[in-house]
Every structure is written in C-alpha cells, then in structure tokens.
C-alpha cells in the first residue's frame, strides 16, 4: 500500500514538474528580472527610483496613463450598457434554440484574430472605404468623410472587440434569474425601469462586475485597436511601454511602466469595487 502510493507520487511529479518549471522559468523568473530592472539605472545597474519617478515627473507619461484609464472606464461602461439588453434578449426573450444560435453569432467573430477584425473595420470606415462609397452613392454625403483616426472610432472599436467578455458572464447570471420575479413585478404594476433597476441589474451585479474587470483590463492593455484605429492622436499607455522597450532600448523604464500599469490598474479596480460596494470574493465565487 505504502509502496504503491509512492509510485503514484513519482508519476504525479513527472507530469506536475513541467508545469511548475514552465510557470517558474518562463513567467515568474522573467517578471522578477523585470522588477529588478525597473529599480536599476540603465547601463550602470545601480539601484534607483528614477524610472518610477519619471512617470510622475514627466507630464506626458502620467497624462497618457490618465487618458488611457479614462477611456478604458468609458469603454467598460458602454460595454455594460449595451450588454445588458443583449444578454436579456438572448437569455430571456428568444427560444432556447435561437438563443444558442445567437450566442454562436457573438462568438464567431472572436475566432478571427483581433488584427484581422480591426483591419475589417478600417476597410469599412476609411475615406475610400465601403461605408463612404455607399453613402456617397445614395447621395447622403456629398463627398467621402474620413471616419477613421479619431477617438470615437477608437472607442467603438474597443467596445466591439471586448463585447464578448461582458455578454458571456452576464448571460451566465441572467439565466439564474427566476422569471416569476419579473412576472410578479409586472402583476404588481411595476414600471419597466423599476424592474430593471430593482430586479434585473442587482441580480446581474456579480456578472457585470466580473465582465467589467475583464473588459477594463483588456482595454487598458490593448495595443492594436487604439494604435490602428485611433491614428495620429491616440497615444495609449501600452504603446509607451512598447516604445521604451523596443524603440529606445530603455528596458528599465519600460519595466517600471509595466509594473506601474499593473499596480495602477489594480488600484483603479479596487477603488471602483469599493465605490460600487462590491466584494471581490463574492464576484469570483
């Protein structure tokens, strides 16, 4: 009996070890190295806080972060507002067979890479693009209008690329909502807004917060969409990190920015959870 147990342990170890090594060597170790880099001076390797101070002293850096975080919050909010009715429609209104088909319709675009989807939007929206061609030919526009390269297009692109990550968790919690609650509210004469405010949204809160965290982090960390669709005015914070590491070879500064992004975004989520009186333990349950 004893012997047998020991052998199972060896087998377990054999399959467990690669995973641990993978995580440690390829994920934990590089992060520790980056953390060390972020606290040292380029070239000399001496300990310094300059890399972190540069973020606060140089307005361009923290302004970029504020802008990025601000837009991420706006995008998250818009995604929430759109996802609620969409999820409600899919999980409560249509028949089960159709709701499956609708779910697949939401999922399918995500089988294609983000880059391709963004290029798709660019083909639609550019000055010599499909939408402009259509509007000019039906006489709505006199001449083509450039729809790319502004903040509104960029927000739209970000909302589109992160939609799925809100809809799925919200549908998950909405399925649990007992229909009879809504029926009872109607019977007692509640208005539609009252039903949404007092029954549906509170019930979906955990799904919304769950999706909100994912969407916020995704948007904050996205690189492609702001860069390609935002064009000439959109400096996203991830681009600063890329620039520091790849273009200016300043790994120390880039590493410090990376950790600042991690710390500040976690802080923002913590503050938002506190403000909305949500409990992280409840959310992940």
């Amino acid at each position, binding site marked *: 009996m004893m012997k047998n147990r020991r*052998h199972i342990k*060896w*087998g377990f170890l*054999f399959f467990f070890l690669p995973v641990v090594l993978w995580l440690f060597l390829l994920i934990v170790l590089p992060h520790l190295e980056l953390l060390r880099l972020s606290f040292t001076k380029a*070239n000399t390797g001496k300990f310094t806080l300059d890399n972190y101070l540069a973020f606060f002293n*140089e307005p*361009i850096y923290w*302004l*970029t972060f504020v*802008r990025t975080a601000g837009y991420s919050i706006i995008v998250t909010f818009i995604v929430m507002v759109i996802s609620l009715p969409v999820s409600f429609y899919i999980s409560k209104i249509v028949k089960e067979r159709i709701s499956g088909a609708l779910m697949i319709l939401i999922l399918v675009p995500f089988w294609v890479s983000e880059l391709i989807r963004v290029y798709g939007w660019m083909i639609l929206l*550019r*000055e*010599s693009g499909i939408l402009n061609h259509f509007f000019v030919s039906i006489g709505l526009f006199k001449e083509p209008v*450039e729809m*790319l*390269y502004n903040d509104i297009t960029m927000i739209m692109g970000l909302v589109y690329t992160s939609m799925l990550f809100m809809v799925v968790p919200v549908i998950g919690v909405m399925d649990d909502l007992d229909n009879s609650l809504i029926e009872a509210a109607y019977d007692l004469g509640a208005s539609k807004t009252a039903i949404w405010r007092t029954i549906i949204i509170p019930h979906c809160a955990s799904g919304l917060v769950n999706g909100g965290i994912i969407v916020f982090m995704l948007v904050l960390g996205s690189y492609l969409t702001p860069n390609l669709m935002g*064009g*000439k*005015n*959109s*400096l996203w914070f991830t681009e*600063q990190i890329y*620039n*520091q*590491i*790849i*273009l*200016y*070879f*300043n790994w120390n500064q880039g590493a410090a920015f990376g950790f600042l992004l991690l710390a500040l975004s976690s802080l923002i989520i913590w503050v938002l959870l506190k403000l909305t009186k949500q409990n992280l333990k409840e959310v992940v349950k």
Partner: protein
Amino acid sequence: MKKVVLVLMVLTILGSVLFAQASAETKNPVLRIITWSGYAPQELLDKFTEQTGYKVEVTLSNNEEMISKLRATRGGGFDLAQPSQDRISSVVEQYAIYQPIDYARINTEQIDASLLEAVKKNTLVDGKSYAVPHVYGTEGLVVNKALAPDVKDFKDLLDPKYAGRVSYRLKRPTLIGMGFSLGYDPFALYSDPVAYQKFLDEMEKILIAGKPSVKTYWDNGDQLLQSLRSEEVWAASAWEQAGWKLHAENPNIDYIAPTSGALGWVDTFAIPAKSENLDAAYAYINFMLEPENAAFFTNRETYGTASKDAVNYLDPEIKANFTRGLPPEVLANINWYPTVPAGIEEMEGKTLDKIKAAR
C-alpha cells in the same frame, strides 16, 4: 501494470527528446539570418544552398527589433544580422552584441569602395569595424504631382494648403528631415545634447502646429501605399521604393528627393557575437554581393546595392528609376545618417511621444 505503463511513457518522452537532439547534430549546418523583408529572396537562398550546401533560416525584422532580440540573447540565436550602419557602434559599445568583421574573409573587390570605407568608419569601435555594406536607400518624398504640385521639400508637408492630405512616420527620420529642411543641421548637433534638445523642442512645436495637415502617421509600408494609391494622401515622406512602385501604376505619383537633401541609409551585414556558423555567414555575405546576385535583388526589390558591378545586370526600367529619382547630383546631396550617440534616441523618443499625444 500501472508502473510499467508509467515507465514506458517516461522512456518514450525522454527517448524522443534525446533522439531529436542527436539527429539535430548530424543535420546540415544551418545559417540563421535576421534581416529585413525582401532582403533574402527565395531564389537566391536556393542558389546559395545549391552552391555551398548551407541551409538558410530567415527571420524578418527591423532595426529596433533586431537590437532588442540580440540584446535579450546577448548576441545569440542568429548567425548573421542586417542592421543599418548607424545602429551598430553604439550597441556594440553598450551591449557587445556583434563581433568584429574579418575583412580578409570578405571579397572586397566586388564592393563599392566609397560605401565600404564609409561603413567601416561609421562602425569603428576600438580600432575594429563591425559591418559590410549591402543595401542603400534614401528617404525623401512621394508626391502626387497632379494634386500636390508644390511639395518640394520636407517642410512643405506642413503647408495648411494640404490639410488632411499629408502623411509621414512619427519616427526619428521625420525630425531630422524636417530639421534639415528648416535650416538646421541635426547631425552636427548630435554631439551636443543641450543644443540637440533645443532643436528637438523647436521641432516639437513645429510638428504639433503642423498636425492638422496630417491624415495619419503611417507606420507600415502597405498602409502608406494604400493611402497614396487611393489618393486619400497626396504627399508623404517615404522611401524611393514606394514612389517607384506607385509610379508604375499612376505616372502622377513619383519619388522626389527633397531640395534640402534626401536622408540616406545603408543596411549592412553584421555578425552577432555568438554566431555559431561563421563560415556560412562569410560565404553568404560574399554570395549576396556577387554582381549577378546583387542585381537580381535590386531588380526585384528596387533597392540600391553596394555591389560595384551589379549595374551591368540591371533591367532597363529599374535603371530608369535610378536615373530619374537618384541621379548623381541628388546622390551627392544626400544627408547620410551618422552613428547615433547613446541617449539621443531617448530624447527623440520623448519628443515624438509628446507630438503624438498633443491634440
């Protein structure tokens, strides 16, 4: 039973790992190159493999990534690299990612002597040089002459007349080209960081003020070609290849060298510090600079080559491009990029970030 299965599984996995190792050692030596897209055409690679027996593995990249990748491995992972000549000496000093070239192993007869001398001088570190010239080119203007007839120099890209019809890269060449065009000599200021910062601050003001003219800052070649082809953009700062390619489709569009001088670059061969196949690397350098092979490359990609006699093998229309766009008086007026001193790029980076973030 369980035990037997387990032991068998472990043996198979270990065995396959060891076997793969053993077979790798007996395989033909491979030459691993990190280079720019188009620099290693498949036809030439096949010919090289046929002549020498070395197989070639190509990784496509650009200057910044080349340095970052080689820096991450401390000069390993590749046997040959093709950085621009101005991006060699400072990274050799800082990170030691390249090794000196043994010019005795290079067939210098077939290389343009002035280019070779210039590159040797520019990549000199501690009495040793680190590169062999391969390809040269310029950055100037690609203009749709029917729509933007007055664009003659970099500074004309700021003209409000062409609002929303102009595109350039938000990279260092733009700062430098604009600088020359507005009467500065940025290269002379390299050695004086204070004066260079003052110059950059000026450029920041000018480029932010010129932002309304810009449609978008392009950052890949296809994006640029597409917007010029569709006539969404009338004038752009770009390489001669983009201009010549579009000229063949639309005669109104062509490359012109700015009156203040085009910016000239030279891409080179440099050998990473931990190159594992020096013989193949030198063989490849000599092979690519043979006149016939160099001409094949130039006919295909329309970049100028450092191979001296390649001109004898060029197609007539390619030759016509060079005589139209880069005649001797234009070549004499080129501002060649000197080596970038450490720290300069960081200063430029901050300026570029500020320009991009400005409203």
